[in-house]
Structures are given as structure tokens and as C-alpha cells.
């Protein structure tokens, strides 16, 4: 059986869902953050698959999509840096990285 676009899309969707459920299930903010990275990368997989699928008239992949992936990776790296800085600041102030411990703002 040959591998079609839908197989890639499904694999990517499953990875996205795994990341999503990690965000919902894990208590450690650091792990939650890893799961968010998982979701972004899942999107990248779809994007590259689409890029390979949507061949241009010259028979080359659509590089606009790969450039988009490049930007996503860059932005995600910046986001990780800022996110980890916030988590470190939180840990310094509260000695915790557990989501249950940060619920003073409510209602």
C-alpha cells in the first residue's frame, strides 16, 4: 500500500492530539510546555507534506511552505526561550512549577 498525503496528515493530526492531551493532563508546566512544542511540530509535518504534495509546474515542492516552516521553527524557539524564562521566574518566586499551585486569580 502506497503512502498518501492523508497518511501524513493523520500522523500529524495524531501528534497534534497527543500534544493537546499532554497539555490537558500533565501538571508540570515545563512538561506542558514541551507538549505545546509537540503541537507546533505536528503542524510542521502537515505543512511539509502539503509542500511536497503541491508540486509546482517545474516539478519542485512549493517552497513557500518550507519557508513558513522555517519561520515557525524560529518563532517557536523564541517562544520557548521567553516561556522558560517566565517559568524560571515563577519557580524563583513560588518554588513550584505545578499548575494546581497557581490559582489565586479566579471568579
Amino acid at each position: 500500500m502506497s503512502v498518501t498525503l492523508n497518511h501524513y496528515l493523520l500522523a500529524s493530526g495524531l501528534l497534534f492530539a497527543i500534544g493537546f492531551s499532554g497539555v490537558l493532563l500533565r501538571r508540570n508546566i515545563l512538561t506542558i510546555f514541551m507538549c505545546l512544542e509537540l503541537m507546533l511540530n505536528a503542524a510542521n509535518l502537515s505543512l511539509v507534506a502539503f509542500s511536497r504534495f503541491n508540486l509546482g509546474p517545474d516539478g519542485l515542492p512549493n517552497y513557500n511552505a518550507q519557508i513558513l516552516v522555517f519561520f515557525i521553527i524560529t518563532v517557536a524557539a523564541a517562544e520557548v526561550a521567553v516561556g522558560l524564562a517566565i517559568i524560571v521566574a515563577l519557580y524563583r518566586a513560588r518554588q513550584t512549577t505545578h499548575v494546581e499551585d497557581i490559582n489565586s486569580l479566579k471568579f
Partner: protein
Amino acid sequence: MDPHLPWFVLLNPLLTAALIHLALRRAPAAATGLSVLSAVLGLITAIGIWFSGTPSAPIEISWIQLASLRIPIGLLVDPLSKVMLLVVTGVGALVHIYSTVYMAKDESKGRFFGNLSLFMFSMLGIVLANNFAMMFIFWELVGVSSYLLIGHWFTRDSAAAAANKAFLTNRIGDFGFMLGILLLWSASGTVVFPELAAKIGSLNLSAGFLTAAVLLVFCGAVGKSAQLPLHVWLPDAMEGPTPVSALIHAATMVAAGVYMLARISFLITLSPAAQSVIAWIGILTAVFAALLATQQDDIKRILAYSTLSQLGYMVSAIGLAAPGAAMFHLFTHAFFKALLFLGAGAIIHALHHEQNIWKMGGLAKSMRLTFLTFALGYLALIGCPGLSGFFSKDLILLAAWQQSKPVFALGLFTALLTAFYMTRLFVVVFLGQPRSAAAEHGHDGPVAMTAPLTLLALLSVVAGWPFIGHTLMGHDLAEGLHKIHAGGGAETVMSLATAAFFVGGAIALALYSKAKRDPLRIAPLQNKFYIDEIYAAFISATQDLLASVSNWIDRWILDGMLVRGLSGATWGTGFLLRFLQFGNLQAYAFLFGLGVVVLIYLMALR
């Protein structure tokens, strides 16, 4: 006509209010003077407008101009608004003068007069507005300024609660009003009255659509003119200073609903279903309020219920396709009801804020002038032949007689009840012996108080005389009145109404002329007159029951569930909603995810 005149009438009180609020709050004397001056100037201008012809071009400046919507700030001067201008500025000016005495000792007089001018501005805005949007804006502004006036003594809890209740109840009505306006706009593409009148006939709207639109607009009148089931705010609003009650709750604001209905009578006549609903709501309010009035002890509350009842007449007249009769009654009622309120105010003022009629009595001797003027107002209200109320009420009853006998029967019964409860009030307050220390020292007020009373008494007598009333009402409205008169049954109705007046008055006179307490509240007294017992037993059995049932409905169903329930439910929902927000990050992520799944389903897979 000089188009500046209407602008002056409208903007003069606004300017006064702004001056007072921004500069003169600390100078009560100046504020009072300025406010009274502006009210009198307004009256003079209104008279000037009345004598000048109708303007040739529409008086308006552009405000909102969209492809689908044009809302000008425009003034409509026609016979209808001219007569309403006279009522509003006339009663307004007298109330201003009267208030200088009544509020003389109030600490925040400046604020009071500022708000009074603000109220005049908003009320005149309703009268002069030439489109629905503007009318709605001033409609709301009237709500706000009356809120401020009712709540003038906001340190009193009951006053604050009453102000809140008035505000909330009116919002319910205004909600319907707004929807109705939007419905009409969406159908016709205009909100300007003359354009709407010209266009509506050619639109071929379905009967259901028109009925819905008219009834929604009517909701606004139900709220503002305190008709069933949104009447609950008016009696409570008596917490405000008495001159305010005279101005707002007798002559002007509550009449705005009737005025608005008269303004759009060209629409109402298009929907017979809506007409009959309006007629029935009006007449039921009239009966219901009159029943409640028979059992009240607070002089202002009696007058408040009586106002409700009279407004019911007017609304009913609109439903009976007799807007002329409605406006005529509005016109006469404004004078005698303002007179009664101001008279009551004079009594309350003289008796150091005593409002219970059973603590008054014998005031005829000590307050001679008040007594005389009050008597004229009382007779006008209960339809004593020859006085203004007789003529206007007669016309409404006649219209009912011609169109719907059940409505007429209820109207006649109301007339009887009116004569009954007003005679009760009059007899208990003015005749007999003083029942409290305060009542022994009653005295007439100073000239600033008695002069408005005298003037209003005069008007209460003559305003209804056909040659005066009809002239003032202008040609178009008078035409409608003649048509009703020519419709037949005039003699029958007039004699029945007169009979009701005599019967109601006589029963009350017999019951109350010697009473120390209300004979209907207690078991029949051991009385020499056997006939008294019969009366008392019979009347207390039927009327006590009716009154207490109405009271129960009023207190629990309408006030409790409709007003409090609605606002409570809104608040409660808000209170519960915020518990979704329980601070846990993952709960938010979960709710977010749930939203995502549901939304994707709705969007892509449904």
C-alpha cells in the same frame, strides 16, 4: 414660523441644567431663579409657537447618515406637538414656581432644580422629536432624569429602591420599544415619522408583522405610562418630592407613552388586532388601578393609582382609534391631576410630611384656598358635569360605547370607582374633625404655592369646555372629537356617566362622612343605620376580595416575578457563569479544547 423658536424651547432647559450642574450647585438661590426663569420663558415660547403657523420645511440638522439609515436631529411641530408643548411647559412652569416653596429648606436645592431642568429638556425632546431614534434617546433620558428626581432623597433607602424599581421596570418596556423601532426600520428603511407615514402604506407588510411591530412599540408605552403589567413602579415612585410627582407622574412623563401612541396612530390603525389588545390593556389597567385605589391610606398613593387608572382610559382610547379623545383627556387630566398632586403637596407640607389620610381631616376650615382648589380638581377628576374631566372622559366612554360594549362597561365601572375613592379621599381629608395634632394646625401656603393651585384650578374647570378645549387642541384633533360626537349614543353615555358619578360619590359619602377609621377594614360596626351595615357588608365582601386579589397579583406575580425575577435571573446567571472561571489553568485548557471540538463539529461536520 421662525424655526428658532422650537430649538429655543428644547435647548433652553438643557442650557439651564448644564449651567446649574456645572456652576451653580453651590448657589441654590441663583439655581432656583435661573431654573424658574427658564421654565417661564419656555412656557411663553410655547404659547408663541402655538399662535404661529406650522413650519413650511422640516426643522432638522443631519446627525447620522448611512446608506441604510438616516437619523436627523429634527423637530416636528404640528397640532399634536403644539398642544403637548403647552401641557408640558405650562405644568412645568407652575411646578417650578411651586417647588421654590416646597423645596425651600432642602439642602441640595441646586441639584434638584438642575435635574428638574434636565427633565424638562428630555420631556420636550420626546414631544418635539421627529423620528423614532431621537424619541427613544429622549425617552431614555427622561428615564434617567426621573430616576435622579425620584431618588433625590437617595439617603432614604425606600427612595433609592423606588428609583431602581422605576428604572428596571422601564427597561423591560423599552426593550420591546427598541425592538419595535428596529422592526419598523428594517421594514421601511426610515425612522422619521412623516416619511414612515408616507411609506408604510405602500410596503404591503403582512398583518402579523405590523401587529408585532405595533405591539412591541406599545411595550414602551406600557412601561412609561405604567400600564398592566409594568405599572408596579408608579406607586412606589411616590417616594420622590411631591412637586416631582405632580410633574412627572401626573402631567408629563407618564403621559409620554400616550403621546407616543398618538404620534404613531397612523400605524396603530393598520392593525386591528393590536388595537384591541391596546384597548383591553388600557381599560383593564383602569379598572385594576381604581380597585387598588379604594384601599390605600397614603394620599399620594391614592393619587398615583388614580393616575394609573386615568392613563388606562387614555391608552384604551388609542386602542379605540380615538387618539383625539386620548389627547383631550391627557390635556385636561394634566391640569387637574397636577392640581391634585400640588394640593396634596400643600397639605403634606403644612402637616409636616404627614401622608396618611386618616391622620388628616377637617382641613376645609384651616386650609381654605387649598380646599377650594382641591375640590375643583377632585370634581374634575370624577367627572362632575360641567368640569373639564367630564367632557374628556365622556368622549372616551362614547368611543367605547360605539365600538365595544364590554370595554364601555368596564370604563363605566371605573368611573363609578373613581367617584367612590376620590370622594373617600376628599371627605376624609377635608371634612369632619382633625384626627391628629398636625391636622389641627393646617394652613395655606405662601403665594408661590397657592398661585399655581389657583391657576390650575381655573384650567381644570375650563380646559374641557368644548370651545376652549377644542380650540387649544387644534383643528385636526378637534375634527376627530366631532366625529366621535356625531357617532351616536352621546345622550345615553352622558347620562350613564353622570349616574356613575352620583352613585359612586353617594356611596362614599354615606360610608365615610362620619368615619374615624376606614369602615371597610374592620367587621361591620354596630351602627344605628341598618342600611350602613348592608352597604358595608356588601361592599366589603366584594370589594375587599377584589382589592386583595389585585393586590396579591400586583405584589407577587407582577412585581415579584416579572421585575425582581427577571433582574434576579440575569444576575444569577452572571453569578454562576463566573464559576466557570475557577482559576485552574488546565481547566481553562480543557474548556478551550471542548470549545474547539464543538466548534469544529458545528463548522465542518454538521
